[in-house]
């Protein structure tokens, strides 16, 4: 870190937090590249790369065709050859097309070469339901948690969007960086001098005594809304933002759960083999089971019909009902 006085936090859009982190990494390290659909003169599907093409040119900010498998494959190869590519896959649903180069090549390169080669590749992708139907709305975060060698980062606010991206671009990878469509409209204060955000460190977003709610990405914002409502009913919720799903900060979850004694996991993806299932398995194996409920999307595709979309995805009302039922079934001693 420099010795100059820290600049004040500045309010910015979520997309600007991403662009700031990418720009700083590109200025610092000439091997950092950006590749993806519309990342060039268009500035990214969410304008999250605005200005980078103009500043760094087409050699370092490369528009790619609608070919996710090839794009991630080229990214993995470039990473193995000494570059630090940031590959942007517009929707997380399309990440499936690139699983082979991501999982079979990038994630295993260090293992296969006994550490001689690494793949410092960042794959940034956008998850979540917002009016785009069955194949553009999914949160497949949990699928990636089980792949040895992959870091899975999922910011819930502009500060972490900046700090986790800054960390990802300096990591020896691969990192999958998952943002969310519904995080883009809200600005937030960002300290660009806050330094890197180490992976595997969760954040307690709200202190509480009665129940621990574990979440990540946009669902943290939904959890905080539910916690505010529950507080009016006299129920005190602690809200923990995982920030990274792999590595998972089990210490912070355990410390909270030892105080509250009740666990709620909240995710926008499916609960079967979901993030919550893994959180519970890891924390309960340390401290024994506690009363719990896991909340996620209903076991159905996210509909193009906005009414069904809203029904499928957890909202504050569903969380409040689940927490209230949990406290009823497992009342304070």
């Amino acid at each position, binding site marked *: 870190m420099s010795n100059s006085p820290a600049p004040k936090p500045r*309010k910015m*859009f*979520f*997309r600007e937090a991403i662009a700031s982190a990418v720009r700083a990494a590109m200025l610092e390290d000439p091997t950092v590249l950006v590749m993806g659909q519309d990342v060039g003169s268009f500035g990214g599907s*969410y*304008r999250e790369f605005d200005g980078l093409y103009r500043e760094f040119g087409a050699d370092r900010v490369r528009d790619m065709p609608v070919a996710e498998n090839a794009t991630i494959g080229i990214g993995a190869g470039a990473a193995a050859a000494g570059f630090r590519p940031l590959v942007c896959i517009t929707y997380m649903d399309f990440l499936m097309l690139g699983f082979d180069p991501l999982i079979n090549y990038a994630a295993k390169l260090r293992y296969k070469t006994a550490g001689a080669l690494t793949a410092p590749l960042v794959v940034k992708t956008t998850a979540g339901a*917002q009016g785009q139907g069955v194949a553009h709305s999914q949160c497949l975060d949990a699928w990636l948690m089980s792949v040895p060698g992959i870091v899975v980062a999922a910011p819930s606010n502009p500060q972490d969007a900046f700090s986790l991206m800054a960390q990802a671009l300096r990591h020896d990878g691969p990192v999958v960086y998952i943002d969310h469509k*519904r995080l*883009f*409209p*809200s*600005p937030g204060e960002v300290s660009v001098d806050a330094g890197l955000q180490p992976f595997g460190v969760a954040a307690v977003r709200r202190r509480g005594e009665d129940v621990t709610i574990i979440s990540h990405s946009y669902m943290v914002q939904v959890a905080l809304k539910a916690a505010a409502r529950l507080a009016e009913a006299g129920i005190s919720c602690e809200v923990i933002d995982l920030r990274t799903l792999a590595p998972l900060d089990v210490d912070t979850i355990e410390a909270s759960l030892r105080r509250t004694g009740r666990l709620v996991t909240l995710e926008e993806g499916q609960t079967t083999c979901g993030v919550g299932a893994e959180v519970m398995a890891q924390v309960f194996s340390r401290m024994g089971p506690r009363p719990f409920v896991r909340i996620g999307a209903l076991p159905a595709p996210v509909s193009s019909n906005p009414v069904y979309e809203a029904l499928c995805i957890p909202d504050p009302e569903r969380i409040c009902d689940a927490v209230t039922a949990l406290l009823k079934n497992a009342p304070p001693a």
Partner: protein
Amino acid sequence: MIYHLTVPKAVPGVEEIRILEWHGEPGARFEPGDMIVELETHKAIVEVRADQPGFLRMVMGQPGDWISIDDTLAVFSDAADEAVPADAKDYSELTVAFEVT
């Protein structure tokens, strides 16, 4: 009569916008169709145009400033020298047209 221009609910999910550019200084006269201000959301520019004639009297923020939806952006009057009461309760809503680009 005194009017206030409030931040329009132009884009779903957006609760705060950033002022990009004013198209006139306090004192300027606006006719229906004239661009008053451009606002910036996370992905779009909102062009706010006058839908009634009037004089711009005060602006509540400069380019780069953030303002919440429904908050007052500017104050207008029918006549150039009309006294502007301090209490915003006495203001009427300025009719505007806006376009998201």
